[in-house]
C-alpha cells in the first residue's frame, strides 16, 4: 500500500511539527509514508472565498501529484473535506472532462483519525501523554467528513491522559477561513465563547484535528495569557514514554489493520 502524506500549505509553513508527528506516528505503526514533492495547497481558501476559477490549477496539481498512490492521509479535516466534497464541482466548473476523470480516479483522501481507525484499524496507537486535555471537534471534520468519535476514541486510548469534556463542543470556534478577517468582530465573539468553555475545563492542552481552528483559538488563548496550549491530535498521538521506538510501539499498540500488519512485518525483516 503506497501511502502519501498531504501536509497542507498551512501545516507546511506554520506547523511543520504536526507533519513530523504524523510521520513519526505512522512509521511507529509500521507504515511507510511518502511525501510527494510538488504538493502545495488544496485550494480551499480560494474556493470558499468565491474565487472558484483560481482553484482549478490547484485541483489539477493535486490530482497530478497524488496520482498512483493507494491512499492520501492528511492532518486536516477541513482540507480533506475540500478534496472530497468540492473537487468534483471544481472540475465540473472548469469544463475540462479530463480533470473530472482525474478527480474521480484520484486516491481516497483520509483525515488522520479516519486513516488510523478505518484503514489501519487501530485506536490504541501506543501513545503516552500525561496531561489534562480537552478536545474540540472542528466543524468540517464533524459535519463534512463525519469523523464522529474517532478522534476521541484515539485520545481515550492514550496512556496517562486526563481527557475532559468540552462544553458546547460542537459549536464553531469562529475561524471559517477568510471569515476570520472579513467578519473579524463576529469571529472573535464566537471564539470568546469557545475560549470560555476551554477555560472551564481546566485543561492544560486544547486538542483538535485542524491547525487552522487551533491557530484561531490558540491565538486568543495566547493573547489572553491563559497558559493553555493548543496541540494537533497527531502530536499527542505521536508522544511516547521512550521516544520514537517505532517497531516496539507498533507491536504494543495491537495494530490490527491489514496494511499496518504488512508494514509491521516489513520493518521486522532486516
Amino acid at each position, binding site marked *: 500500500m503506497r501511502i502519501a502524506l498531504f501536509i497542507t*500549505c498551512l501545516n507546511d509553513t506554520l506547523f511543520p511539527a504536526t507533519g513530523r508527528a504524523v510521520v513519526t506516528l505512522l512509521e511507529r505503526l509500521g507504515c511507510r509514508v511518502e511525501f510527494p514533492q*510538488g504538493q502545495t495547497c488544496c485550494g480551499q481558501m480560494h474556493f470558499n472565498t468565491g*474565487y472558484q476559477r483560481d482553484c482549478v490549477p490547484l485541483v489539477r496539481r493535486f490530482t497530478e501529484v497524488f496520482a498512483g498512490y493507494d491512499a492520501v492521509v492528511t492532518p486536516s479535516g477541513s482540507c480533506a473535506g475540500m478534496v472530497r466534497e468540492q473537487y468534483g464541482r471544481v472540475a465540473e466548473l472548469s469544463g475540462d472532462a479530463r480533470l473530472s476523470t482525474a478527480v474521480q480516479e484520484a486516491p481516497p483522501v483520509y483525515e488522520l483519525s479516519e486513516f488510523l481507525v478505518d484503514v489501519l484499524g487501530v485506536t490504541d496507537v501506543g501513545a503516552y501523554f500525561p496531561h489534562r486535555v480537552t478536545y474540540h471537534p472542528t466543524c468540517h471534520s464533524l459535519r463534512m467528513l463525519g469523523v464522529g468519535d474517532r478522534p476521541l476514541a484515539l485520545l481515550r486510548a492514550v496512556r496517562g491522559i486526563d481527557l475532559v469534556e468540552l462544553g458546547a463542543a460542537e459549536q464553531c470556534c*469562529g475561524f471559517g477561513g477568510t471569515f476570520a478577517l472579513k467578519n473579524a468582530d463576529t469571529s472573535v465573539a464566537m471564539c470568546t465563547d469557545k475560549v470560555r468553555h476551554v477555560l472551564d475545563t481546566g485543561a492544560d492542552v486544547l486538542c483538535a484535528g485542524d491547525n487552522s481552528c487551533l491557530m484561531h483559538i490558540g491565538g486568543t488563548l495566547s493573547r489572553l495569557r491563559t497558559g493553555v496550549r493548543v496541540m494537533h491530535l497527531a502530536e499527542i498521538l505521536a508522544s511516547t514514554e521512550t521516544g520514537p521506538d517505532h517497531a516496539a510501539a507498533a507491536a504494543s499498540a495491537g495494530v490490527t489493520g491489514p496494511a499496518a500488519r504488512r508494514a509491521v512485518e516489513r520493518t521486522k525483516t532486516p
Partner: protein
Amino acid sequence: MSDTTFLGMPAFPVAARDALRDSQLRGNLARATGTIRTRRAAAVGEQDDWEELREAGRALKERTLRHLDRYLLQLEEKVTAAGGQVHWARDAEEARRIVVQLVQDTGEREVVKVKSMVTQEIGLNEALAEAGIDAYETDLAELIVQLGHDQPSHILVPAIHRNRAEIREIFLRSMGEYGTPAPAGLDDDPRRLAEAARRHLREKFLRAKVAVSGVNFLVAETGTAVVVESEGNGRMCLTLPETLISVTGIEKVVPTWQDLEVYLQLLPRSSTGERMNPYTSTWTGTTAEDGPRTFHLVLVDGGRTDTLADPVGRQVLNCIRCSACLNVCPVYERVGGHTYGSVYPGPIGAVLSPQLRGTDSEADRSLPFASSLCGACYEVCPVKIDIPRVLLHLRARVVEQERERRLPKPERLAMTAARWVLTRPSWLSAAQRAGGLGSRLVARRGRLGRLPGPLSRWTDTRDAPVPAAESFSAWWRRTHPETRRPARRRQS
C-alpha cells in the same frame, strides 16, 4: 423585494460590529436560541424516521418546484371554483398596489394582520400607511415589534431580541397610542404580559372588517390555504373579518393533502420543538354562512422565478420558514437578526435575500460571506437545503460580478498572488523562507502580536503564529535526501 424596510442597511460586518456591542441583545439571543435548540433536538430525537421525513420533504419540494407552473394553475382553478379570487404579482410594487386597492375597495381604514413574512418582504404596512390605512399586527411577537417601532429579527419569534422586561416597557409606553392601553401596574410576568396583549388585540379582532394574512402551505388539488400557528390569533384573523386577503410567495404550493402530511410533521418539530402546533387552520375559498364573505389570494413572484432558474440556488425555495437554521447558527446567535438587513435573517436569509433581491447593494453582496461555513444549518434543515453549498455558490457569483464590473478589490490581488505562489512549489518554498526570516525578526517570544494592513484584523485580538524556521517540506528534503526535487511542471 422590499425597498422600504431595512432601507440603506450597511454591509454585514459593519452592522455586526454594532450588534456585538449590545450585551443585552447577546444575552437575550443566547438564552432564547439555546432553549429552542434543546427543545428541537428532543422533538426530533424521538422521531425514528426523521431522516426519511427530511428526505421526503426535500424530494416533494423539488418535484413540485419542477412543475410549479402546473400546480399554480391548478391552484388558481380550485380557489376560483371555491369562490376565492387569485391575483398575480410580479414584484413587490405590484403586490403592494393590488393589496392596497383590495382594501380600499372595501372602504375600510384599518386591517388586522397575521403570519405574513411576505407582506414584510414587500413592505405592505408602509404602503397601507401611505394610503391612510392602519395595519395592526396580531401575532404576539409581531405586535411587540410593531409597538416598539422595531424590525423583526427572527422568522418564528420576531421579537426574540427583546426580553420580558423590555416587552413590559414597550406595552406600557405604546399600547395606549393604538388602542386599549396596558393595565396600570403591569409587571414582567409572562402571563400578565400575554393578558395585556389579549385585551389589546381582542378589541381589534372584534372591530376589524378586513384581515391580511400569510400562508404556510397551499394545497393545489383542492385550492386550500393552510396557516400553522401557536396563539390562536391567526384563527381570529382568518375567521372573524368579512374580507380575507392572503398574501404569499408562489413557492408555497404542495400538490396534495398527502404531501402536506409530511410538512405538518417536519415544521412544528423543527420550529418550536413541538410534536404538533396548537392551531392549524385550513380554508378553501369561501363558505356560505361561515367565515369571510370574500377571499383574495395574492401570489407574489418577487424574484422567485429567477431563483428557480438557478440549478444550485433554487433549493432555497424548499424553505418552509421553520427557523431551525437560525437557532443553531453561531453567527446569528451572536449578531441577531437585524444585522442581516432583511425580513429573512440567519443562514436562510443569507442565501435567500441575495437571490430574491439580487447582489447590487453592498449589504446583499456581504450576506453570502456572513458565515463560518460550520454546516450546523444544513444538519438541522427539515427540507435539506444545503445552505453552505448555496453560500459558496453565491460567493462565487459576487466575486465574478465584481470582476466583471472591475470593482477595485485588494482581496482579488491577494488571491491572484496566492494562486501564483501556490501553483509554483519553488516560489512557495522561497516565500516560506522569506516569511520565516521576516517574522522572526518582528516576533516576540514566539508570537506575532501585530501585523500590518488587513492582517491587523487578525492580530487586533489574536496572536499570530510565527512561520517555522524550517518548513515541513524543507525538513523532509533534508532528512530524506533520496527524495527527488520536483520536476519542472507546466505552470498553470
